[in-house]
Structure formats: C-alpha cells, structure tokens
C-alpha cells in the first residue's frame, strides 16, 4: 500500500464515522430524508461560498453551506407549519428548488468556477491526497483529512457532552421538554451537525452518497440492536467496513470510490436485511409462519372446547368445519399432539387436561389484554413451537 492509498482509506473511514453519528439520530427520529434534502440543497451555499473564497476547503465555505442546510430545514418546517402540504411534500419541494438554483448558478458562471455539478454529486476521493495542507513549507497531510478530522472531533465532543439530552429528546420529546431540555435546540443542533458533516464530506464522497453513509450503517445497526450505544458503535463499524472494502472494490474495478463504497454498503444492508436475527426478513417470515400455525392451533382448541358432541370432534370433520386445507389441518393436529394438548381415539379428538387449561387461560388472556402479545403464555405451555 502506498501512502496515498492509506490516506484515502483514512479519509473515507473518518467520513464514514462522522456521518454515522448524526445519521443514527436521524434514523431514530424518522428524519432520514432530511439528510437527502440537506445534501442537495447545500449546493447553492457551496457555490456562493466558492465565489467568495475560491477554495473548496475553506472553513467559510463550509460554514456558509451549513447555513444553507439549516435554512433548508427551517423552510421545510415553515411550509409544513402552514398546513398547506404534508411534511414529505414540503421536503420534496424545497430541496429540488434550492438544488436547481445551485445548478443554474454554476452554469451561469461556468467560466470562472472550477466546480462542476458532477464533482459535487460524486466527489473524487482519488484526488484528495494531492491537495495538501502545508504550513511554513512542512507537509501536514491532505487538506480534506484535516477538514473531516476536525468535523469528526467536534461531532464526537458534542455527542459525548449532549448524549443524555440527545437520547431523551429522541425518544421522548415531551419528557425532554418538561425536564427543561429544549427539543428545538437539540433538533437544530443535530441539523447543524448533519449539515456541517454533509458539507465536509461532500468533496470526499459527493453530496448524494453522503446520504448512503448517513442512513445505511444506522439502518443496519437498527436491525441488529435496540440499544442506542450499541447502535452507534455498530453503525461506526459498518461505516468503516463499507469505506475500506469499498475502496478496494473500486481499486479492483477501476471505478468511482464513492460508488463502490455505497455498493458495498448496499450488499451489507441486503445481508443484514435478510439474515438479521429477530428483525431480518427471514426471521420475520419464519415468525409469522409460526404465529399463523399457533393461532390456528388456538382456534382449533377453542373449537374442541366448545363442542362436547363426538361428531364435531371427528378428525375429518375439522377439514370441513374450520375450512382448512388437509396439509394445514395435519400440521395443526401434529403440533397439538406433540404438545400433549389433545388425545386421539378412533379419530375422535379430545382435549387433555393441559389442553383445557391452556385454552381457558388463553381465552381469558385474549379477553383481558387487548393488544399484548401472547408469547409469554405460549412459552409456558408449548414444548414445541409451530
């Protein structure tokens, strides 16, 4: 590995970490699309800043662009408060308009701007190591490394200082307000951090792909844990994996680094989405199937309890009466037998003592608890689950 390669991977990892932290809170606050809006609408801010400073890494440019990001959030909320359109429409209206202004500003001044829209959207990480920060002739490393490093430091400092407040205002706005933490300040603070991070990251990974780094790692972490601290750590880990693996994929394919970072994140997300224990697609489908059988079993047992007469308890009768297919009746019957809920004599089914107590307790439970899950009861009674 050359030193340039190490530097690129370092920058990419720092960007990924800096994005994952505010991203986690955005995902939890159901504001993920705001990051998309901010990443588009900072364009006019960047262009205006560039006219003034002529330096893409100047702190003034970053500040100006971040202000544009906050203006976006403010505009979205203003439009939403008028009640004329819903929140999502407000987002969808504001950022394309601001982005268009940015594109037109670039087009109108194409001659004296070394800034094209592609670069803003995509960034070019590969060139980052060539733009070096020099003080008194000594080489201190790539400029963007310093920029994103500073942003990351500030973000982490803010996170540690306000962790409690952020956590509280994320999960219970009302309580936060009663305890005297202003949710509005937290909200705008988070938005400001997200804007600054987006601006700082845009020339490394591009404005749109910042969104991927902000949303994908926290979304994966959210599927794996329900603990905020673990979620933050997992998002950071996923972000860094995406960044480093993405760099090598890009190296191998000779294609855009930002694009391949996102693609790696995409593949990771697909894996987590399918296989996450408890919340992934496969386990959800499995659980739904099991719950279906168990509900059927309950229906079946209730039916048995309601009917003393033998004709109603004949095995074949069940097919007709409860309107089940053969296979399903069989699986329900098997499950009931395995759990010692029923006995079968000459094709006549009767409830065992255990079956009876389960049924009456279950019906009691269903009547008194409107929406609580019945899982705990099932654990007590079932030897085998459906």
């Amino acid at each position: 590995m050359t030193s340039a390669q190490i530097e690129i991977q370092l920058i990419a990892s720092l960007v990924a970490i800096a994005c994952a932290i505010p991203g986690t809170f955005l995902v939890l606050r159901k504001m993920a699309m705001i990051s998309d809006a901010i990443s588009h609408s900072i364009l006019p801010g960047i262009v205006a800043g560039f006219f003034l400073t002529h330096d893409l890494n100047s702190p003034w440019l970053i500040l100006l662009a971040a202000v544009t990001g906050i203006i976006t959030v403010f505009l979205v909320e203003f439009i939403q408060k008028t009640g004329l359109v819903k929140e999502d429409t407000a987002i969808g209206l504001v950022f394309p308009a601001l982005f268009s202004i940015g594109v037109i500003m670039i087009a109108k001044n194409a001659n004296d701007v070394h800034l094209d829209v592609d670069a803003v959207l995509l960034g070019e990480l590969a060139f980052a190591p060539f733009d070096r920060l020099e003080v008194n002739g000594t080489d201190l490393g790539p400029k963007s490394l310093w920029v994103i490093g500073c942003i990351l430091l500030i973000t982490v400092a803010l996170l540690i200082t306000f962790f409690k407040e952020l956590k509280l205002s994320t999960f219970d706005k009302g309580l936060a307000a009663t305890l005297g933490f202003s949710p509005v300040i937290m909200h705008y603070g988070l938005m400001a951090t997200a804007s600054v991070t987006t601006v700082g990251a845009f020339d490394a990974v591009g404005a749109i792909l910042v969104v991927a780094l902000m949303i994908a790692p926290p979304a994966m972490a959210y599927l794996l844990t329900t603990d905020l601290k673990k979620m933050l750590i997992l998002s950071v880990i996923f972000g860094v994996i995406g960044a480093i693996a993405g760099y090598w994929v890009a190296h191998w394919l000779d294609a855009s680094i930002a694009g391949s970072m996102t693609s790696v994140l995409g593949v990771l997300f697909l894996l987590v989405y399918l296989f996450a224990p408890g919340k992934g697609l496969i386990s959800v489908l499995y659980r739904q199937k099991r719950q279906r059988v168990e509900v059927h079993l309950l229906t079946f047992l209730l039916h048995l309890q309601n009917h003393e007469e033998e004709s109603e308890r004949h095995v074949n009768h069940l097919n007709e009466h409860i309107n089940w297919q053969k296979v399903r009746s069989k699986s329900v019957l098997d499950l009931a037998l395995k759990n010692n809920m029923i006995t079968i004599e000459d094709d006549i089914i009767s409830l065992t003592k255990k079956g009876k107590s389960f049924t009456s307790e279950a019906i009691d439970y269903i009547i008194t608890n409107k929406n609580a899950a019945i899982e705990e009861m099932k654990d007590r009674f079932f030897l085998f689950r459906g």
Partner: protein
Amino acid sequence: MSLEEYFSLVFSDYTLRTITLGTAVLGAICGMLGSFAVLRKQSLLGDAISHAALPGIAIAFLISGAKNSNTLLIGALISGLIGTFWIRGIVKKTHLKSDTALGLILSLFFGFGMLLLTFIQKMPNANQAGLDKYLFGQAATLVESDVWLMCIITGISLIVLLTFWKEFKILLFDIDYTKSLGFNTRFLDILITSFIVVAIVIGLQTVGVVLMSAMLLAPAAAARQWTNSLGTMIFLAAIFGAFSGVLGTAVSASSNNLSTGPVIVLIAAAFVVLSFIFSPGRGLLFREIRYWKNRNDLQLHKTLAFMFNIAKNHEDISHPHAVKILNNFQGYTKRSLKKLENREYITVSGSMWSLTKKGYKKATNLYNQQEETDD
C-alpha cells in the same frame, strides 16, 4: 435568442417544437400522476424511484451496448420497480420506518448506478458519452419518437385513470373502507404506483434523476391549494405541469448555459409559491386577512357586549351614555365606535352613544351559537 424570437420560432422550428411539446406533455403527465403521490403521502417516493432508476440505465447499456433510449428506459423502469417493491418490503417486514427505507434505496441504488457509470466510462470501446445526461436531463436530446412515446403513455394512463377513477378515489381517501367493500387494494396500489414509476422514468431523459421528484410534486402541490375536488386538482396539476414545461423550455432556450431541467423545476416552484400565497381558500395571504378580520370582529363584539351590559339595566335600551365610560380595555377605539355605528348597532351623537334595537338584538344573541353569524 430572445423570448419573442422563441415564441415566433416555436411553430416553425422542428427542434424547438419537439422539445416544447415534449416538456409540455411530460409536465402534464407528471402533474396528473403526481397528484396521487402527493395525496397518498408518497411524495418522496418519486425522489427514491428516480434515483433507483440509474443502475437500470447503466445495466441496460452494458447488456445492449447501445444508446437506444427505449432500451435504457426499460432498464430504468425495471430497476425503478425493484426499488419501489424493496421499499415496500422494508417498511412492511421490518421495523425500519418509511423515511429510512426511502433514503436507503435512494442512496444505495444511486451509488451502485454511479459505480456502473464510472465503470462504463473506463471501458475501452465505450461510446458512453451521453449516459450522464440522465443525471440532469437534457431536453435538447428529445426527438419526435420520444414525444410520441410520452403521448402514448399519457394516453394509456388517462384511460386507466378514467376506468378505475372511482376505485382510485376511494383508495386515496379511505383505504380500509375500500378493502371492506371488496376491492383488491393491493392491485390498485400496485397499478397506481407502477404508473408513477413509468411517469418518472420517461421524465429522466428530460429533467434528470436528481430533479425528477420536483416535477412530480410541484404541480400537484400547487394544484392542491386551489381546489378540494380530486378531478379538478388533477386537471389543474396537469395544466401547471404543462405550463412549467413550456415556460421552462422557453426561458432556457432564450439564454445560454441554462439546462432545461433546473429551469423547469424553478418555474414549477414559482407556481407553488404563488399558489401558497394567493389561493383564495387556503392561501397564506387570504388566511392572514381572515385572521385579521376575525380579530377585529372580536374586538367589536367585546365593545358591544360591554355596551349591552350597561344598556340592559335601563328601561329604555337606547338611553344615551357617555363615550368616556368606554375604554381601550373593552376594545374601544375611535375606529371601532365608527364601525359599530356603520353597522347600525349604535348611534353616536356628540360625546354620547346609545344602543339601537338592532344592536341590542345582536348583543343578546352574541354568544348564541345557533344564531346566524354576522356579515
């Protein structure tokens, strides 16, 4: 070229005519289908789909090796649909919320698309130049067959819309009721979403991936402010869309260096702003005026109620009293007194006022909700 020149050339010049027609038709179909997206609270779906279409374009190019826009559009359509259904899958099967799902699909698909695009650009024999026009759109590349395609799709979606009008309408406003009536909501949902995807895909070439969502939302959001009827809203949205298309093309054709997409979007946004402010029923301006009027009326009522409380203790309700006993606290100002006089609730002579019969009656019923509200 100035704007006048543009309008004189629009009927004679082939290119200008095609582009203008194309953007107009596109604006109309986007407005039409966008109304559904806005009302179903799926506004950002358009943004996600348009980004998700990018890898489809790149893959279609990799497979066919040609820049035929129809093949590319089919690729875009397929990957747009995959994105849409994945979003639904994420929202339905996991506890991730719809905003996270949208953002995920949007950025992941787009990133993958960019990876493919840069990969294509580095291929040795690539005549790939022009693929990136799908990023920002280039109305100038529209040819007559594209416009025909747009017209045909608009026609089909109109027919479908009219056939399923009743079903779509009920689906929009009360989905549970629709289900209980026995309509197949899933089919209807997929049908309308697919048409939104189609509209987005045909717009990609003109407006581009990034700005397509505004094309879908802005006309519908503007139209929503003027009416409460679905039919009128769709009609208005189509007209707003078409006008933004035509005006945008005109403005961008009449000056250098202006790509059509952003200009169209800005004009559509201007329509939205105007509608937000000036629409008579919901607009901010008239709403403020209404508030202001109500506030003034309340002040008047307060004064009137105070007068009533004095007057009712007298045998003759029109017994004159001094103006002096009124003060600011009861909402009294010179103007409010004048207003009360104009409405014939009181008569003023010199520094004395007296309640009229009409005023007395009005004051008696002031807090009676059943009574007709005043002018």
